[in-house]
């Protein structure tokens, strides 16, 4: 394994000691949520950024994972923690099914289909009360009063997810995914079954997103279809995390996750109470503006277009076009 660089080790070390330094439950909560979004965003990015299949429906997997954990309690009478084991595989199975249905569609049509399936799941979960308790949602008892176990669990899952994606990207699969993204027809001529490898990408992507959902159930102790199957709060948020951080990069989504969650919280709390109340309504507006700016000027996200950004800071000499991704 390659030796990790300082730029990786230092933030990681900081994250590990964070709860010891910061005692406030409020900030710990924000970081837990951010770590959860590292998982969701990275998973989305594997399918969209690396394999070129832009999903607008990742809420499907998140919600499936969350409800798997919830149903453990309501239907099986066992602890929701079993959901952490089951949530990933169940979501992956759902992913396989969706791939089988939707992968015949290319580009924007695939995106539209994922929106439709996402909405079907949301409406289905709302209406199928016998299974999901409908809009009443599922409420469980939190296992721990302290945030610390949840924090380290989130950190563990996020770390495992990013590491897994790192291994996948640097393997045969990674080459195949990008080949499919760049030119699916050429890829097929190179002996790559586009369907098989898109499905594999989706399998990993949905697995980890489902795992994040199961975590959410255990951590927040309450879920309902409106939240966990939400097009706006989950699916589109996943996309935002990916594109603002940087599609097609390993560290883009983690950076994006922290930026988005911190930004969201900064606005929701009116800059932590420093600004008037109406500012708290502004975070969606800021997200929208960010999307517009990033897509227009920083199409590869903050991480992907970092050379461009640092160019703005340094005076004078323009940087040479370094990477193939430019």
């Amino acid at each position, binding site marked *: 394994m390659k030796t990790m660089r300082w730029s990786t080790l230092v933030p990681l070390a900081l994250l590990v000691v964070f709860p010891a330094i910061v005692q406030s439950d409020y900030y710990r909560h924000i970081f837990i949520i951010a770590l959860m979004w590292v998982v969701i965003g990275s998973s989305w990015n594997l399918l*969209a950024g690396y394999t070129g299949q832009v999903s607008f429906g990742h809420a499907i997997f998140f919600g499936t994972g969350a409800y798997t954990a919830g149903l453990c309690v309501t239907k099986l009478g066992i602890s929701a923690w079993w959901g952490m084991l089951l949530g990933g595989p169940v979501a992956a199975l759902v992913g396989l099914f969706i791939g089988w*249905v939707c992968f015949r569609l290319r580009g*924007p049509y695939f995106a*539209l289909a994922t929106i439709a399936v996402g909405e*079907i799941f949301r409406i289905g979960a709302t*209406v199928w009360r016998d299974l999901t308790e409908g809009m009443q949602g599922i409420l469980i008892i939190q296992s721990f009063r302290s945030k610390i176990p949840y924090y380290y669990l989130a950190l563990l899952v996020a770390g495992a997810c990013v590491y897994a994606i790192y291994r996948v990207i640097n393997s045969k699969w990674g080459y195949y995914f990008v080949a499919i993204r760049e030119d699916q027809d050429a890829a097929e001529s190179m002996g790559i079954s586009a369907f098989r490898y898109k499905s594999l990408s989706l399998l990993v992507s949905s697995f980890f997103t489902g795992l994040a959902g199961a975590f959410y159930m255990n951590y927040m102790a309450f879920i309902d279809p409106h939240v966990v199957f939400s097009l706006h709060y989950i699916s589109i948020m996943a996309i935002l995390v990916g594109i603002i951080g940087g599609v097609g990069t390993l560290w883009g989504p983690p950076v994006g996750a922290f930026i988005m969650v911190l930004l969201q919280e900064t606005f929701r709390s009116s800059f932590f109470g420093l600004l008037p109340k*109406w500012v708290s309504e502004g975070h969606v507006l800021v997200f929208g*503006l960010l999307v517009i700016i990033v897509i*227009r000027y920083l*199409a590869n996200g903050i991480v992907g277009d970092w050379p461009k950004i640092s160019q703005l800071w340094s005076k004078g000499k323009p940087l040479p076009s370094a990477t193939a991704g430019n």
Partner: protein
Amino acid sequence: MEVFVQTFVSGILIGGIYALVGLGMTLIMGVMKIINLAHGQLMMIAMYITFVLFEQLQLDPYFSLLVAMPALFIIGAIIQKYFLNPLLKVDSILPENQVLMTVGLGMVLTEIIRFIFQSDYKSVTTSYSTEFIYIGEISFNQAMVVAFLIAVILTLILFFFLLKTDIGRSVRATAQNKDAALLMGINAEWITIFTYGLGSALAAAAGSLLLPIYYLFPDIGGPFTLKAFIITILGGMGSTVGAIVGGVVLGIAESMGATYISMALKDAVGMVIFLLVLIFLPGGLKAWTKI
């Protein structure tokens, strides 16, 4: 039996208005090949414009059309020129850049409106909102009937425009084959700007017409964007006749779904149709029946 006819007729009436939303979307998709995820938000803005005109000037929504449509035409043209066209030159990993841009635009538009008007439900009740026309045992909501008729008139004007005028023909030519259109001297950039404006104006018309029937709130755009897609995919991307058929089919399907299955599942009906069409009828009804 009456219930069936009633449901069917309601479906057609609302479908005619849905068709306007779908027409705008299908033109945009046909010409620019982009998915306009801000379509519902554009409609929503028109609805707020109409609402303000009603509140302040007591202007009837059907007359507000004449204000809302040009206003949205301009907004749409600006969006295409300054936000979407420039993206064509950007080389990014995700080809769906334009789509994502419309997502961002939709969010910004929604939040601006929310900031100005707050999130509470607003409504417009005109003298005829609650009046019904009766033919035999079947009742027609007067507002819906008038809206339907206006929608039909607008659709006819649109068809005349597309078939008989030069600009209209240029739009159709660009929709069918952009490169050929370019070779024939059509300024594709202007056509895209015009088309997005036109699509927005049509969405605006639908918005004004629907205002007396729906409650208005900033997030009302999203579901309509989805409806527009269902209609576009159903009818066949770029097919104006298809959009009309798609609109009416969706209207009827939703109406039937609401009556015979349940209100809650009404939206799911649209989604399922959408998915089935995407998978099994990729060209939409257009391809299947050679409209």
